[in-house]
């Protein structure tokens, strides 16, 4: 096995996915950190990597040659995404095009070809020993899936531990990120919102038959609905990160706790060894 992929996810945003992923990768040292939250990538704000490689990501969109177009509207009728319309000529709504290539196939006069449209960029960099790979979608774009697919393609054959910082939710983008993972860490905060979304994302990883465990973040005294969910459903609790002003302010400054003089940093090292044991 060339590598072990650990996906860090949470149904809800803002629970601490990036905090956990960044600290685990930094604690491991020689490893990969992959930011699949391409709509709002934040990992690079912590690692501040030296960028060594940039790759633009393109999708195909139709290019209409009006001199060949007979005005038959076959393409408009075919497009399930309403990305084409016909006024005096064919109009393309680039934002809603899914790049299926159907319009080009159905055009009887071969008036449609394809051109590239840039939707984002992938930046590879290094931060100390950690190799960082971040996908960044351009604002105004509808879907980052092609960027996520390329990110996962890049890490397919790398060596060592790979930490995948997933997008929030349980939609298709999350499934893409989780598909190849060897282990999933679910991060949850201690509210009913947190527990509700933890249940959702737990169903998702179960659907894929993935091994998983939970990190309870921002723990305080008092009832923790997410902890309750884990106990009732017999899900392993990997770590409890306390609510802590020191950690909160390090995090809000974009600093990595295990690289700073943070009193509880052992917590991340012990989480790391638990997770390494699980993927052995």
């Amino acid at each position, binding site marked *: 096995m060339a590598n072990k992929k650990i996906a860090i996810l949470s149904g809800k*945003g*803002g629970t601490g996915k990036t905090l956990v992923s960044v600290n685990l990768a930094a604690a491991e040292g020689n490893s990969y950190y992959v930011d699949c939250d391409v709509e709002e990538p934040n990992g690079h704000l912590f690692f501040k990597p030296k960028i060594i490689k940039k790759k633009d990501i393109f999708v195909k969109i139709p290019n209409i040659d009006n001199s060949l177009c007979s005005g038959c509207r076959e393409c408009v009728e075919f497009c399930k995404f309403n990305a084409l319309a016909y006024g005096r000529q064919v109009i393309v709504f680039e934002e809603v095009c899914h790049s299926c290539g159907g319009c080009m196939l159905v055009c009887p006069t071969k008036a449609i070809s394809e051109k590239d449209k840039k939707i984002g960029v992938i930046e590879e960099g290094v931060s100390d020993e950690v190799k960082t790979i971040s996908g960044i979608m351009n604002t105004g774009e*509808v879907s980052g899936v092609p960027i996520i697919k390329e990110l996962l393609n890049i890490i397919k054959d790398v060596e060592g531990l790979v930490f995948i910082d997933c997008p929030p939710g349980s939609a298709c983008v999350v499934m893409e990120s989780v598909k190849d993972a060897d282990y999933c860490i679910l991060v949850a905060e201690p509210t009913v919102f947190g527990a509700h979304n933890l249940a959702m994302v737990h169903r998702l990883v179960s659907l894929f038959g993935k091994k998983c465990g939970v990190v309870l973040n921002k723990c305080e005294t008092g009832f923790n609905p997410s902890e309750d969910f884990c106990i009732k459903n017999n899900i392993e609790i990997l770590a409890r990160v306390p609510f802590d002003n020191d950690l909160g302010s390090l995090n809000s400054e974009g600093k990595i706790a295990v690289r700073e003089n943070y009193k509880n940093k052992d917590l991340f090292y012990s989480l790391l060894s638990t997770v390494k044991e699980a993927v052995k």
Partner: protein
Amino acid sequence: MKQLLIISGKGGTGKTTIAGAFIKLLQAKAYADCDVDAPNLHLISNHTVTEERKDYFGLPKAHIDINLCIECGLCEESCRFDAIHHGQRYYIDSYACEGCGVCKYVCPTGAISLREQRAGELMLYRNNAVFSTAQLEMGNGTSGMLVSEVKKQMKESAADDVGVAIIDGSPGIGCPVIASLSGVDLALIVAEPSISGINDMQRIIETARQFGTKLAVCVNKYDTNLKNTQTIEEFCKDSEIIFVGKIPYDKKAVTAINDGKSIVDIDCPAGIAVKKVFDNTIKIIGKL
């Protein structure tokens, strides 16, 4: 009816908590949760009526009739979404299928059809107010379409005298957010004073501006980083975006939410602060 959308770019900044408070303060007659991927507003909205449920179908997805399939492989070759695979026979990965219909078009034997598939569920609570929400089924990609359905359901069911409707948006800047932004009168951005929060706020502002949406910003948990809060205020000033106030971090907020309450139901500093943000926001939307 005017529509106020609450968004943040980054998740977990307090969108739903603030939306819940606004609904209470306004005694809103119409509201919606557009975070169809991970809806939460229903957890604090205390509805006593049973919701009306309606299946949501996204785009029909491809289905192969193996009795007609001659294993030519044209469909697999033509699929841009890597949704057709060959096990014992050819089959469709319905999670990957986007329903474009290309496989059906290229199939020489007519073995492929597009079939309706349930992709989620719309819920509508209706008593003295209407509350429209939905849950997308796991792994579905048509969340933007469902967001539009949630908003449509709210508009169609709301009374004529609604005034202002409150919409809890979805996280991120992609398809569901763009669908959330469409047609709203004002978007209130809930920012968090962290380096990540600032970055995400800037990206959502950039996105919203491309669609010409009018914007206001507030900061939640402002006292967790005063320097970053100041950066956000200055950014708003420089970008000519109205800053409507800041809300402190408040442990009582967590307790309120876990009791299924809104922060304005209890006496707490966050509740008092959110009231000011509310007054400022309503003033702006009233002038539009």
